[in-house]
């Protein structure tokens, strides 16, 4: 159709057919949603956080529902890179959708080795580095809250990968722009934010934390205003594409991020509530562009007037 808007966006060298992707840890390895979502229509699939070795994650209970949100302390359970390449990637490769692999490690070396391993794997379109994990050599302080640690880990990953490199920022910092600048200095092609906000919930009958891990990460509609504010701060500071994440349930939510300056969005918790959320959001963005006579989604991005 002639008048259907151009939805293509460029994420640091990776061109997506539209700006709607899935958020890591909320869409499995894609296949889980194959019967419910037309996967071919996704801008990209971002898979569950991957580590060098398989990881069993935290003991249950791992989630707790909160007002308009949820806490999770899954603990990054995943099959490990070799099983991913062998068992999960082949299905994703049958789709004509970019596969973005979200990676994490407990040390800088682990991140670098993993990035290097994936660099040789065809079918991986880009890497998203989750820097919200504890750095075991720095007493467990997350890489993503220390500008120098963030710089080091991104630089080492950069040295090992030629793929577009997205750095996923933690919101658990007082000034996210400091980390954003360091990540870009170290070679990030794009930034994504936010990861979950650290939180907690208590079972008053048992006087115990609702999560076995005591604390967890908050996601869902409750975090959207915080995410938008952080995206706004970051797009004003850096000149690489920014991917907006946090509480996106509807097309209107996604449009808020795009107008604020995000070049694309990732949909997370919404996939649990409405497995078809990504499709509804994509349709809604398209309808909005048509209604407002906007020919290209890139003409909408960053048009916030203050």
């Amino acid at each position, binding site marked *: 159709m002639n008048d259907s808007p151009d939805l293509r966006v460029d994420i640091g060298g990776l061109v997506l057919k539209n700006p709607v992707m899935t958020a890591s840890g909320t869409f499995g390895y894609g296949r889980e949603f194959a*019967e419910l979502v037309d996967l071919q229509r996704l801008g990209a699939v971002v898979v569950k956080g991957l580590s060098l070795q398989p990881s069993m994650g935290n003991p249950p209970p*791992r989630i707790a529902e909160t*007002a*308009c949100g949820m806490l999770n302390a899954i603990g990054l359970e995943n099959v490990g890179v070799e099983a991913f390449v062998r068992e999960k990637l082949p299905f994703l490769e049958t789709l004509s959708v970019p596969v973005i692999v979200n990676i994490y490690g407990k040390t800088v070396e682990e991140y670098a080795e993993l990035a290097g391993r994936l660099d040789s794997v065809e079918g991986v379109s880009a890497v998203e580095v989750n820097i919200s994990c504890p750095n075991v050599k720095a007493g467990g302080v997350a890489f993503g809250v220390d500008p120098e640690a963030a710089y080091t880990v991104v630089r080492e990953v950069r040295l090992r990968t030629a793929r577009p490199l997205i750095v996923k920022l933690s919101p658990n910092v007082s000034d996210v722009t400091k980390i954003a600048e360091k990540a870009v200095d170290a070679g990030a092609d794009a930034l994504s934010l936010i990861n979950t906000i650290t939180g907690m919930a208590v079972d008053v009958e048992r006087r115990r934390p609702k999560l076995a891990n005591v604390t967890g990460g908050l996601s*869902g*509609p409750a975090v959207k205003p915080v995410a938008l504010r952080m995206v706004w701060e970051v797009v004003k500071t850096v000149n690489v594409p920014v991917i907006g994440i946090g509480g996106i349930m509807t097309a209107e939510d996604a449009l808020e991020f795009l107008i604020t300056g995000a070049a694309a969005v990732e949909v997370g918790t919404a996939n649990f509530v409405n497995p078809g959320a990504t499709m509804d959001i994509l349709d809604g963005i398209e309808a909005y562009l048509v209604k407002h006579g906007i020919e290209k989604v890139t003409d909408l991005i960053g048009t916030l007037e203050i």
Partner: protein
Amino acid sequence: MIDERMEIIGAEPVSTDCYRMTLQAHIGYADARPGQFVMVRIPDGLTPLLRRPFSIHRSRRLSASRTALEILYRVVGKGTRRLAGCRPGDRLDVLGPLGRGFSDPPASGPLFLAAGGMGVAPMVFLADRLCRDEKRRRDIRVFLGGRTAEELLCRDRFEELGLPVVLTTDDGSDGDQCLVTYPIEEQIRLIPPTMIYACGPPGMLSCIAGFADTYGIRVEVSIETLMACGLGACLACAVADRRDRQRYRHACLHGPVFDAREILLP
């Protein structure tokens, strides 16, 4: 598996806090297996946010294209309270059928169905299906336990199928005053079953799972865990693997029905 907006065609209380709801569902539910479940949400609004898991309580063919899907639930919090306020004509988002259900029974020998409290929900569906085989009917024995007589739900459904039902209550208000696991163990000694199917509170399931080891009987348990997606994506529903302590199983994918020897019950 589909996500469908279903019309409620029946909603009635079955005891003080428990309700039975009937939904007009896709014909695909005619092939659902006992033990499988659905994830349910009231379409409007974001509270509660996540869908709630419920076992399929019964599924009956309505027409060539529709099935009547029943759930049986107890009001325990926000989500189930809102559900109890829904009326015929209202619509719910229902994702399913999900998970791995109960296995087919061994070719011969006695079969025990053990239900504690709300654990009776999937057992009615299981009994329905097992009784399709007229010859198996006389092999089946049902054990129903609850805290009080009021908690002994669906006894009539089993009796309609012509199945013998052994009742127990904690307070002695109906049946024998003991845990449901006592008459089960007694019966095991008299007529060892070739399979025990069980659903109920964790304590009851651990005890029955113990019979698998003690008496060498196949036991399948349907368990409950917290769940966000029901699809194998969120990994909330971790269950400890009995043989391999370095990994978790996932209740929505590998369960909710497990061979008792596969997992460590909480």
